[in-house]
C-alpha cells in the first residue's frame, strides 16, 4: 500500500511543471522580544503539487515559520509568498485557498462539531453561505466524523478534535493545506486514515505542507522535505535525494570478521565496524560494484553468510545532518 501510494504521489510534481512554488520565503527571520531568534534567514521553496514534509526537533522554529506563512506572526525580516502573493499583505485573497491545522485543533466546547465548522466557515467572507451546510457535511464525512457531528465538541476525544480540525481545513477546495502535526493524538488506525486522506488530497492536486517530528510519517507520505534545527534550514529537496545523501551501509555477515575487515580496508572502504559475526562499512562510492567486493571477500577465503548494501533511511539522513537525536529540543 505504502509504496504504490508514495509513487503515485511522487509523480505529481511533474504533472504541472509550469507553476511556480506554492510557498516561497526569502531570508525569513523572526526575532522575539528579548532577542531570541526563533527563525533565522529561512529560504524555503515548496513546489506546486508536492507533499512537503517539514521536519525538525521541538523548538526548532517550525511552528513560528508556519504562523508567519499564514500571516499570524509578522516576520522581523525577510519575505513570504504563498500562492505567488505576498503574506500577510494578500492574506484576504490567499487564505481562502489555504486550509490549516496549526499547533493542534481548537474548538468551542459548548458547540457541536457541526456548529464549530459553521462558525469557522462564516468567518470567511468569501465562503458561499448557500453551499455552507453541504460543505460542512462533506468535510465531516471526509474525516470520518459524520456520526459524531451533533455531539458537543467538549465531549470529543483528542483524536476526534484532531479530525474536526482537519475538517475545518477541508471546508473548501484548497490549493494548499498546511498541516502541523496532523496525526498527533490519533491511534494507529486513525494515523493510517489521515495519511491516506493526505495522499488522496495530494492526488487531487492539493499541495500539502506537513510538519511532523515522525520521520517514518514523512517518509511514507512526502515527496519533498526540509529539515530545520535551531531556527535554521539545514536542507531541503526531494525525499529520495535527502535519503541518498546519507550513504547506506555495506553489511556482511561472516564467521571470519577480522579477515573480512582487512580485505574491505584494502579495497578502500571506510567506517568499518565489526560486531560479532557482523561487519559493516560505509557504502562504497557509486563507481565500485558491490559484487566485485563480494567476489574479493570470497577469493580472500572469507566465508560469507550474507552480503548487501542497506538503504539509508531519512532518519540516517537526519542524524547525519544534525548529529543529534531527533527528539532532542534544539
Amino acid at each position, binding site marked *: 500500500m505504502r509504496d504504490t501510494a508514495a509513487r503515485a504521489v511522487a509523480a505529481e510534481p511533474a504533472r504541472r511543471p509550469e507553476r511556480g512554488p506554492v510557498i516561497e520565503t526569502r531570508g525569513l527571520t523572526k526575532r522575539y522580544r528579548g532577542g531570541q531568534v526563533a527563525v533565522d534567514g529561512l529560504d524555503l521553496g515548496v513546489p506546486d503539487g508536492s507533499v512537503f514534509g517539514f521536519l525538525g526537533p521541538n523548538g526548532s522554529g517550525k511552528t513560528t515559520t508556519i504562523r508567519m506563512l499564514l500571516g499570524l*506572526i509578522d516576520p522581523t525580516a525577510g519575505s513570504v509568498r504563498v500562492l505567488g502573493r505576498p503574506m500577510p499583505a494578500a492574506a484576504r485573497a490567499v487564505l481562502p485557498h489555504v486550509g*490549516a491545522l*496549526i499547533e493542534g485543533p481548537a474548538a*468551542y466546547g459548548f458547540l457541536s462539531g457541526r456548529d464549530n465548522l459553521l462558525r469557522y466557515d462564516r*468567518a470567511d467572507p468569501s465562503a458561499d453561505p448557500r453551499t455552507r451546510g453541504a460543505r460542512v457535511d462533506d468535510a465531516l464525512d471526509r474525516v470520518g466524523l459524520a456520526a459524531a457531528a451533533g455531539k458537543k465538541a467538549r465531549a470529543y476525544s483528542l483524536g476526534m478534535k484532531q479530525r474536526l480540525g482537519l475538517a475545518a481545513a477541508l471546508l473548501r477546495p484548497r490549493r494548499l493545506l498546511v498541516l502541523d502535526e496532523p496525526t498527533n493524538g490519533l491511534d494507529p488506525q486513525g494515523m493510517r486514515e489521515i495519511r491516506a486522506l493526505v495522499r488522496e488530497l495530494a492526488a487531487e492536486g492539493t499541495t500539502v505542507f506537513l510538519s511532523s517530528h515522525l520521520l517514518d510519517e514523512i517518509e511514507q507520505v512526502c515527496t519533498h522535505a526540509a529539515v530545520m534545527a535551531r531556527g535554521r534550514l539545514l536542507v531541503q529537496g526531494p525525499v529520495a535525494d535527502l535519503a541518498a545523501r546519507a550513504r547506506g551501509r555495506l553489511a556482511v555477515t561472516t564467521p571470519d570478521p577480522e579477515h573480512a575487515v582487512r580485505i574491505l580496508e584494502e579495497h578502500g572502504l571506510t567506517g568499518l565496524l565489526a560486531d560479532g559475526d557482523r561487519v559493516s562499512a560505509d557504502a562504497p562510492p557509486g563507481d565500485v560494484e558491490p559484487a566485485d567486493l563480494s567476489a574479493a571477500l570470497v577469493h580472500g577465503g572469507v566465508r560469507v553468510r550474507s552480503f548487501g548494501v542497506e538503504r539509508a533511511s531519512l532518519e540516517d539522513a537526519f542524524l547525519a545532518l544534525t548529529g543529534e537525536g531527533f527528539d532532542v529540543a534544539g
Partner: protein
Amino acid sequence: MSRADLTTAVADGVPGAPRRALWTFGILRSELTTTLRRGRTLVLLGVLAAVPVLVGVAVRIETGDGSSAGPDGPHGPAFLAQVAGNGLFLVFAALSATLPVFLPMAVGVVAGDSVAGEAGGGTLRYLLVAPAGRARLLLAKYAAVLAFCLVATLVVAVSALAVGALLFPVGEVTTISGTRIGLGEGLLRAGLIAVAVAVSLTGFAALGLFVSTLTNSGIAAMAATVGVLITVQILDTMPQLDAIHPYLFPHYWLSFADLLRDPLYWDGIVSDLGLQAVYVAVFGSAAWARFTAKDITA
C-alpha cells in the same frame, strides 16, 4: 469550483467566490449566536433577571401588611419607594440597582473574554486563517458586546416589568417633576431609559475589548476589566478627586433618571453620551491598533 477558477482567482487577487456585501455579516451573526449560546452568558443573564425578582419580592413582603412603602430615602436604590404604588417603577428601581455593578460586571465579563478567551482557547488563530480579517473580527466582536449591553439591560427591564406588573398595581406614572403621565408614555419612557442605560455601557465595553487584546487569558482579561470597573467606581465616590470625576466613565450613568422628568431634561444624558463616545473612540482605536499589529502566538 474547478482548480482553474481558483488559480485565476488567486492570480487576479480576487477571492474565489464573488463577494456580496451581506455575506460579510455572517461573522456578526455568528458572533452574536456564539456569545448568546455560551452557558456563562446565560448564567449572567439569569442573574440579571433575578435581581428585579428579588427587589420586587422584598418590597412586596415589606409592604404586604398594608403600609404604603418600604424603606426609602438614601438607603435603597432610587425609585424603590414608588414601586409598591406602581409596578412600573420596579423597572427604574431595578436598573438603578444593577447599573453600578451588576450590569457593567456582566458586560466586563463578555467584553474581557471576547478576544482573550478565543486566544486562550486557540480558536482565534483558526478564525484569523479562515480568514476573518483582524479589523473585521474586532468590529464583529465589539458589535456583539454592544448587542449584549442592550440584551442585558433589556433582560433587567423586562424582568422588572413582568415582576412589577405581577406583584403591584400598574397605572399612571408620577414623574420626578411631580406631573402625571399616562401608562403608555410611562412605558415609552421605560424603554427610552433602558436604551440610555445600554448606551452608557458602550465606553466601558470598549475598554473591556481593549484589555481583551492585551492577553491570551480570558480569565485575566475579565478580572482586569472588572477590576478597572470597581476601581473607577471607588474613585468616583471620593470627594478629594472631584476634579477628575467628569472624566470617569460611570460618572453620569445614573443621569438616566432625568428621562423621568417632565419636560425631559437632557443635560446629564448628553454629557454621558459625549463621555461614552470619547471612551469608545480612545479604547476602540487602542484595541484596533493593538489587535491588528499583534503576533498571534496562542
